[in-house]
């Protein structure tokens, strides 16, 4: 398999996952904004590292609407949902011979649908429906990959991209939102704003999952544990890094070589696997997450270097 193929599949996975995460995040934020009209928009802007640009714009309601447009369809935002889907489709199109018809057609169908929606007047664009179909279709595309793709290196790169992106998204959401809700890093449940914390879980679609696991009231420490350390939660950082490590090992077995990316993937997986949430809070959640996010981004660079993706 060519490095260019590996690169395309890796980025297809990343972009598709990015669109999906963003869609879910916007939905959760909108709900929250409707229910409490607080500083939610600013919080989302922080997740995308755009607080300053955001603060300069006008009234709050307007600002949330314009932020959503920026995240959904802005042409100048390379990570907007529409741009991400277009990029994933470009990657897939170049590799049509390396993916199944099911994967290609479901991704292409999503792109066609978005293009059709964008052709009409902006004022009439139903953003809610657009976000909903991105969420739905992305699940279909990953599902098609799951049941139809040959389990070979190509699949490993697609999975690597998707899980690395997802680990980064969850880590970033937890880091930024936890800090907004508890600037002092205190994980006690006292004076907890139920709606704000359930919205944090909603960002990774885990409100009901939380109840299923803990069967009790919301507690910041458990929320952090669920999002970071629970291996059985498919969007937790731990689960994603476990999958990254697994795919790295399959590649190492196939290629018979190992490098820095393999070491780092194994180390990150082990760090989350053996971490304990009370110890994490002793160190400080922000410190722990800061280092973790730094290492995830180093891992992404190392993968690029090792497999000649750049």
């Amino acid at each position, binding site marked *: 398999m060519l490095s260019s193929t590996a690169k395309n599949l890796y980025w297809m996975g990343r972009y598709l996952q990015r669109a999906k995460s963003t869609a879910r995040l916007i939905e959760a934020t909108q709900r929250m904004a409707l229910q409490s*009209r607080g500083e939610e928009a600013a919080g989302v802007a922080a997740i995308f590292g755009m607080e300053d640009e955001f603060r300069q714009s006008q009234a709050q309601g307007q600002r949330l609407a314009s932020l959503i447009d920026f995240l959904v369809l802005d042409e100048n935002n390379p990570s907007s949902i529409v741009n991400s889907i277009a990029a994933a489709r470009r990657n897939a199109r170049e590799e049509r011979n390396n993916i199944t018809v099911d994967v290609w057609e479901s991704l292409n169908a999503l792109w066609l649908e978005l293009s059709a929606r964008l052709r009409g007047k902006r004022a009439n664009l139903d953003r809610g429906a657009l976000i909903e179909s991105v969420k739905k279709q992305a699940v279909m595309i990953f599902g098609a990959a799951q049941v139809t793709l040959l389990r070979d290196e190509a699949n490993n790169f697609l999975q690597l991209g998707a899980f690395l992106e997802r680990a980064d998204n969850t880590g970033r959401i937890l880091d930024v939102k936890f800090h907004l809700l508890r600037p002092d890093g205190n994980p006690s449940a006292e004076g907890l704003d*139920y*709606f704000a914390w359930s919205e944090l879980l909603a960002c990774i679609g885990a409100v*009901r999952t939380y109840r299923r*696991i803990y069967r009790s009231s919301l507690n910041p420490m458990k929320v952090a544990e669920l999002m970071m350390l629970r291996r059985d939660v498919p969007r937790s950082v731990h689960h994603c890094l476990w999958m990254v490590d697994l795919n790295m090992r399959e590649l190492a077995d196939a290629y018979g070589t190992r490098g820095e990316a393999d070491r780092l993937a194994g180390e990150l997986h082990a760090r989350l696997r053996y971490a304990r949430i009370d110890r994490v809070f002793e160190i400080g959640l922000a410190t722990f997450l800061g280092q973790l996010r730094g290492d995830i981004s180093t891992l992404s660079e190392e993968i690029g270097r090792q497999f000649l993706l750049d």
Partner: protein
Amino acid sequence: MAAKVFDEMNSGSDGSIREPYRGVADWLARTSPERVAATRNEVDLFYRRHGITFGAYGAAEGAETTIPFDIIPRVIAWDEWQYLHKGLSQRARALNAFLSDAYGQRDICRAGVIPEEQILMNGEFVAMAQGLQLPGGVHAHIAGIDLVRVGEKDFFVLEDNVRTPSGVSYVLENREVMMRLAPELFAAMSVLPVADYSEELLATLRSVSFSDGHEPNVVLLTPGHHNSAYFEHAFLADEMGIELVKGSDLFVDESRVYMRTPRGPQRVDVIYRRVDDAFLDPLAMRPDSFLGVAGLLGALRAGRVNIVNALGNGVADDKSTYTYVPEMVRFYLGEEPILQNVPTWRCDRADDYKYVLEHLSEIVVKEIHGSGGKGMLVGPTSSKAEIEEFTALLKARPDNYIAQPTLALSTCPTFVNQGVAPRHVDLRPFVLSGKKITIVPGGLTRVALKEGSLVVNSSQGGGTKDTWVLAPDEADGR
């Protein structure tokens, strides 16, 4: 009662818009009919896709239908809600005190406030529950108290539902629909959230476990997917993260209840049951029941499992006990009732019976154990033949009926085929009683979609609306 109908939006002084509805009125004025029509179409799709359906009694096997949802919300100002909240809490406390007493010493009978036969001869009395000491003395953990409004300040309790009241899933789902389909209206007003209901319900259920010192295992017992409220059972179990069980999933061993799991039996401490009393335990109640668990009542009596709501609550919420609730408030709490009852004639009293027979065409007559809008006569809208037919029923068993004046229920603007028109509404808030009393701000607003109709039941063509309680600082509705 006053013939003039109170419209919750338009009956401000001099026919102006009432303050809490200012936002709704503005929205109605500036939203195009096309936009509204498009939104209404989306609603039904939304409900069907989410499977939020109910099987009406008497409908074809497996037929699922959605309850019509009206997108114009019903708005309640903060101070109005404060008043209702106080009144509802008081009523729930009195009903719980009464149920404890009814299955205990019956002090209220000895004091001569309620005749003992009112309790003991009641078809809903469950002798097996006599003398039970329930955690916190709570019997009615979840109460759906139906309110009607007839004027700016006049709310009445129409009935108390303390057996297995349903409808709360619509409170939560209607809110989801409104946020999704009319975000601009939602954003223009400051609406108190209701999404924490499941959290509060789970906390309530956990707080009434008999067992101290270990994490209580709570389950929801459903009659199964043929039940008309099955969607709600599954919805609540999912929201709370607890198991949704049928009778066949549970068994009793040495007075403990267990659920069957692949890991072996797992102990159950609290059962939120949506199965009627008569079907709960074939050993103690109806032997032909396949919906219950053999030995369940034994486990309850042994103090090993709590059943929510408690057994035999029907003695507190039938239409004849209803007339005594204000007395219960005075007797148990030493307070004056905040929420008033609708004046009621009891047909088992000679004077009342005589009056009722003479005024059938003006009043509403209801069967004491009737529900779902059945077994009742709405005098003013009934034909002569219907009245005659009902007279025969009434004469056969006067003690089975009560009667009330025809209330001019308040109306709310509602979308109908001809546009926006006033339709009559009621309100069912849900009161949770455990270690404390919790009422999420809002409730189920039911609306009679037929012009002039006062029957809001979903089985009789009623629909629902989202109920918006406005936050205190912006109670003016902007």
